[in-house]
């Protein structure tokens, strides 16, 4: 599984970096992104969904950030 830590990265860069990473993967591969609470966790999963990928899981981490598990679609 691939992983991308985007804590401290604001919109729209967090989405752009997620998108660029997903482009490197094969369909069905998994990517875990770590996102800040607030704007990031509201916007990034949404844009990822819009691009046709699937969100499998969202977990709140200690410290307040979120882990979001994406399956490339």
């Amino acid at each position, binding site marked *: 599984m691939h992983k991308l830590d985007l804590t401290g990265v*604001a919109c729209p*860069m967090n989405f*752009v970096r997620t998108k660029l990473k997903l482009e490197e993967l094969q369909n069905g591969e998994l990517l875990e992104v770590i996102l800040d609470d*607030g704007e990031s966790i509201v916007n990034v999963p949404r844009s990822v*969904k819009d691009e046709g990928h699937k969100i499998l899981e969202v977990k709140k981490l200690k410290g307040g950030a979120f882990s979001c598990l994406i399956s490339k679609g």
Partner: protein
Amino acid sequence: MDLEQLKRGGVVKLKEKDQFSVWVRAVCCNMDAVKFRKVAELAERYGRGIILLTTRQFPIIPFVHFNDLEAVQRELKEVNLMLDRCGARVRNSDVCYDSNICPLAVTNPLTLGEKLDEFWQKDPGGHKIKTSIVGCPKQCTSPRVLSDIGFVGVAPGRFDVYVGGRLGLRPFIGEKMAEGLNEEECVRVVKNLLDFIHRSGREGERSADLINRLGAEQVRQEITKDLAEKVDYKPYACDTKQSEKIGGTILRIRATAGEVTSAQAQTIADIAEKYGKGFIHFAVRGSAEIPGVKEALIAEIKSELAKVGLGILDSGIDNLQSCFGEYCTNGIVDSRGLLKKIEKLIARLGLNDRDIKISAAGCPNTCAISPISDIGFWGVIEPIVAMEKCNGCGICAKACKVNAIELKDGKAVIDYKKCKWCMDCINACPFESIAGGKRGYAVAVGGRGGYSPADRRGGETRLGKVVAEFLSEAEALELAEKLLEEI
């Protein structure tokens, strides 16, 4: 891709996969013909041959593929154009007209605009702060509602200051915070507000939120302190500012739904050079305007415009303004399509001479300024939680701007009394657990953006009253017809 530029904004994702819109900065809300031609050319080459003229008074090139963003940005730079700003940032100041153009202006809004330019250049981001400056109390660009800080010219070099304005889900009419300030004091007020919001603002808060949370008095004290202390800044030089009265008239070109094709934009640029002062002004309602045109030549210009399917707004119904509508990731309805039908309706009824403003926005964010229009439409949708799918992650509740969602027993529950039908929760839920129920148009009537004693239906800035919700397009058109006949 220049990722640094992306951080500053100016590129916004559209609904279709990999499609973005590029926001092109128009200094002082004007653009010379050479630059506008370039925008038209880029829209043709990289977009779909259309340009949108927005309520924020600059052109947008929609439908640029992600992979072409860098090329577009580079080509804009070749003619000294840069991207505008979007998102939670200090925005470029919006202005009405140069006092050497508008006969009503009591002071020149551009001079203050030039002085405020540095703030957005240096802004670290985090809070959306819009600024509008108008040259007289008629308030053509509606600074009291469309901007966090609105400056209204009241005497030469003097402005009243309003703070808190915004539309959208939690609309707010700006409160008057100071009267008759000079330009240096106005600059200080902006600096004070920025310092204050960065120091005391919570994530994403705007000036209206500060007023709601802390009270107008505290905000007033903070932003009007140390007014005599001069702020250091380097003013920007607006390249279309006029040094003397230019005479002639302002030719206002109709652009229904704020849309022109690349070919039309080329013609507009040609006309600005041939008959005007070589530049185009972008008005709030999306018309493209050419100042300094000789009255006697208007008939001739009209026939040149007609060749590319353009007309002018000479009296009566103002430009029908929309937003991205269904191109937008938030769009619920095809508001642009609705306006094109309303345009036909107006022609059929022969009502073009009515002095009315009509807007239609794709969603309750009302970027098309529907609530300050005589007749304003926006898209609405009813969110319905599928309990069996909801896993209680709470992201929808964070997305909801009016706190209408609460988690009860690990499930999202929507309070429909608070809901504004905006679709944010539907979009934000990572698991598609919120579906859209009924959708349609909301309609508000009687909104006003500015104040002019000379207006037939004068009166202070106010939001329209919602008279219907969830109308189908056919019902919305029917209501439009009724309202048009009544007004």
